[in-house]
């Protein structure tokens, strides 16, 4: 039996991050200036193609910039294609929204790119501030610090660093929040108040299991006596 190879089952969570996030552009020159020249993200791939399928589209270029970690941001530039929608309305090259759309909603969809520390965050801040696209906002969130700007296509780009690693209790809190959210979102008039009330119930319900798990986790560790 000991000769048999141990078969390690594959993990349940198998995806490996972002291969690429793709967006249309009507300003390829500005896009290349922003990503390649200002942020200095290397161009790593490009494809020239045409619309051959039933959904005929113009000749186009699909080009990619490295955003680290072997992940990429990619753009489509379609020759001769004009932007859709009212170009004075809020939005970006992918879509224009109604004129009265508030800014928080327009900016809610965005790409956030990770850096390791404050030095690197400030380096990107400097690159952007020296360009046509200065940083619009620098924000310290609960556990991350971020800078934001809009690229030449109107897409909001965030560059962010973690202030500290995420702790196990935050994972538990996130799980409880989402369970509470599902419970109240399917009920009448979901509100923050209802969410926090439901969360309190789940916090009490799950506290014992958490404490037992913590004991279990700590048990095999040698006890340090000062």
């Amino acid at each position, binding site marked *: 039996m000991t000769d048999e190879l141990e078969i390690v089952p594959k993990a349940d969570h198998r995806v490996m991050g972002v291969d690429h996030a793709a967006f249309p552009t009507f300003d390829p020159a500005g896009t290349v200036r922003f990503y390649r020249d200002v942020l200095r993200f290397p161009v790593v791939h490009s*494809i*020239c*193609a*045409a*619309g*051959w*399928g*039933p*959904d005929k*589209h113009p*000749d*186009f270029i*699909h080009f990619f910039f490295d955003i680290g970690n072997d992940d990429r941001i990619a753009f489509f530039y379609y020759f001769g294609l004009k932007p859709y929608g009212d170009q004075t309305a809020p939005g970006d090259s992918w879509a224009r929204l109604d004129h009265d759309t508030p800014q928080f909603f327009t900016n809610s969809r965005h790409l956030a790119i990770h850096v390791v520390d404050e030095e690197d965050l400030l380096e990107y801040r400097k690159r952007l501030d020296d360009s046509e696209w200065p940083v619009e906002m620098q924000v310290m969130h609960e556990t991350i610090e971020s800078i934001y700007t809009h690229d030449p296509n109107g897409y909001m780009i965030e560059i962010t660093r973690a202030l500290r690693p995420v702790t196990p209790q935050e994972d538990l809190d996130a799980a409880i929040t989402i369970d509470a959210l599902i419970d109240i979102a399917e009920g009448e008039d979901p509100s923050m108040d209802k969410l926090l009330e439901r969360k309190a119930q789940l916090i009490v319900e799950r506290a014992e299991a958490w404490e037992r798990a913590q004991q279990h986790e700590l048990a095999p560790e040698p006890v340090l006596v000062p």
Partner: protein
Amino acid sequence: MSKTPVRVGLIVPSSNVTVETEMPRILARAPGTEFTFHSSRMRMKAVSPEQIRAMNAQRERCVMELGDAGVDVMLYACLVAIMSTGLGAHRDAEMGVAEQLSLGGSEAKVLSSAGALISGLQALGARRIALVTPYMRPLAQQVVDYIEAEGFEVADWRALEVADNAEVGRIPGERVMAAARSLDLAGVDVLVISACVQMPSLDLVQTAEDEFGIPVISAATAGAYSILRTIGASVDIPGAGSLLLADASVVAS
């Protein structure tokens, strides 16, 4: 023969004339399927590393042109262009062309003569092979290394050392056969009579197979085999070596 013809796209070096001659000749003999041929050319006159690099840069344009023609299958017909760019390069090249096509909604299948040669050798169950190439020795050595990296042993090989690609298209069959006869074929499973789609060899394949008594393939017969397999047609073309008789109902013994 009332079926819609299968459109075959050929991406060829500009100085190549042989693949557009041999491929239609072979596939015209395939029972039950009609083929039409459409080619796009990449500028290349001398088979040198510099010109091969310049030629590969034209690949995207060729794919676009053949994509516009709505071909069903596309063959990147320059074996050395792929094999000299690095071991296993046909996979990347085929993937790159396939990505370009599928991104634009084309369902064309993608093949390369480099990949087809490997598939042909695998289909014959080859392990130990011998090879005739028209290339200069350094390029020929790269082709040999490439094939060995795909898991075959190249027992013996000849390089005819013709650099000018137009001249490669005029190499007489007798010279190719003479090179083949000079090979040590002891223990060899399969002879590749021409590892190049430009060196004329179609008429030599059956002759060589009869003379040497082992299966003989060329870059062209391997390409035809892969095209037939890819479109799901039966492989039953007599007189061009046993690879193209893979699906023949009665195999001549």
